[in-house]
């Protein structure tokens, strides 16, 4: 047989195997979480806060963690977006050859690779220094801190894909760099920016390590930014670490809730970015 055809078959086979591994892992994670969680999933899970003795098998739900996670992730993403987008704008002002811009990008990439636990430990040090308690505020700061490099680089990459000819059109009419980045680059990159923001939300809501020391944990729904706050990943962690099978089962049910939130975010991001591509130039 022809060697090139054999090669073709070999690599095709290899691709099927990789695809199978990726999809297989994903499906088994979903399947296990759903199979183990479904029996304990009920309406009070999402409508009630934990009653006394919840972690020993008592009644109630994890509304505290659901609301807490939403507050925390939303706050952190808003804060991170406010910091990231101007940073990304600023990076667009340098020519591709700029040493400053490329070193900033490398630094951000490194920062994005640092485990979120380290950010948690860092903020915890500040908290110790200021002698304050874990709260929603510090949780938001920590999550925002580890989202900023991710988000900045994601937005920066999207903005860099904006064709030069679009920027030329704006410059040729007398627009300044700022006006061009503001009106043209951001407009064209908007669907990508939205996707990046919602992916960041998914990252923020799913992260346990960063909020372990900084956000605290409580059975109540926070009413102020200085209150401690429960989060879904930690709720899952605490429930899993009890010795009671029925409480462990609730951990999986909480996992389903977290998956659903992330899923809604993904679908929402798809929908929104479709909506905002209307004016984009292909």
């Amino acid at each position: 047989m022809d060697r090139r055809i054999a090669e073709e078959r070999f690599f095709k086979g290899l691709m099927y195997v990789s695809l199978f591994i990726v999809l297989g892992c994903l499906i088994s994670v979903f399947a296990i979480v759903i199979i183990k969680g479904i029996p304990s999933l009920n309406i009070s899970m999402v409508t009630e806060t934990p009653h006394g003795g919840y972690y020993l098998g008592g009644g109630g739900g994890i509304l505290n963690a659901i609301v807490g996670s939403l507050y925390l992730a939303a706050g952190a993403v808003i804060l991170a977006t406010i910091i990231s987008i101007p940073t990304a704008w600023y990076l667009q002002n340098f020519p591709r050859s700029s040493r400053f811009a490329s070193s900033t990008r490398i630094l951000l990439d490194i920062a994005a690779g640092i485990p979120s636990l380290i950010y948690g430990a860092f903020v915890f040090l500040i908290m110790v220094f200021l002698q304050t308690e874990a709260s929603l505020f510090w949780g938001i700061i920590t999550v925002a801190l580890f989202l900023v490099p991710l988000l900045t680089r994601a937005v920066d990459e999207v903005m860099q894909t904006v064709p030069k000819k679009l920027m030329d059109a704006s410059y040729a009419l007398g627009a300044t760099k700022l006006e061009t980045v503001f009106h043209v680059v951001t407009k064209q990159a908007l669907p990508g920016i939205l996707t990046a923001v919602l992916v960041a939300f998914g990252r923020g809501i799913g992260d346990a390590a960063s909020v372990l020391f900084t956000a605290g944990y409580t059975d109540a729904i926070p009413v102020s930014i200085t209150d401690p706050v429960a989060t879904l990943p930690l709720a899952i962690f605490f429930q899993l670490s009890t010795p009671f099978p029925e409480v462990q089962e609730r951990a999986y049910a909480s996992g389903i809730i977290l998956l659903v939130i992330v899923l809604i975010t993904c679908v929402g991001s798809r929908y929104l970015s479709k909506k905002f591509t209307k004016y984009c130039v292909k």
Partner: protein
Amino acid sequence: MNETEISIKNFSLYIENRQILKNISVDIPKNQITAIIGPSGCGKTTLLRSINRMVDLYTPVLAEGEIIINGKNVLDPDINLSLLRKNVGMIAQAPNPLPLSIYDNVVYGLRIHGIHERSALDTRAEQCLQSVGLWSEVHDRLKDPASQLSLGQQQRLCLARALAVEPEILLCDETTSALDPISARHIENELICLKNDYTIVFVTHILRQAKRLADYVVFLYLGELVEHGPAHEVFTNPQDPRTKAYLEGVFG
């Protein structure tokens, strides 16, 4: 004797230590169409982008000599680029509508230059779309994305957008090369109408197009200005052997 609009004097340009344009001197006449011709890679685009100072947008360049418009040297580092480019419009090779609606494309430059009053924008948008013959085609869908127009319509939109800020000079870089022949003719005819009010510098590597449009011709070859003069003189009686060869199609 014709008035001069753009006076280029001993202009040389280097990019990354390579000399792209070599000691170019030419006076571009007012209210005429000047065609810059020459084989591809000879520096036509670079020369055009020097006139509105777009050359040094993304890459650092070194320039010598002068390009004088309205008594000011555009190569002066202190020049107000925004006002320069308001006065010197440019239409690119491929249509480049902004990611906005048709209407917002036309008034983009006006807004940049501080005009926000709705009625003023409306009037100007209609005028400019009329003058490129696009109004009747788009007046009922001004809010649609500009990218939905056909390429030919997009290029006319770009022309309208350039006209909106009332420039004196229009730079066209092979503005019809991405278009079908009918749209290309459309644009050519509009440029001919516009030359009463504007000075047009038109880059092309298509000789027939240059013959149709040009009043004045500048022939560039390998970054050098080989010959320039009124179109009929250059086309019927070229002085330089390289021009003669080019017109006979030797360099393609």
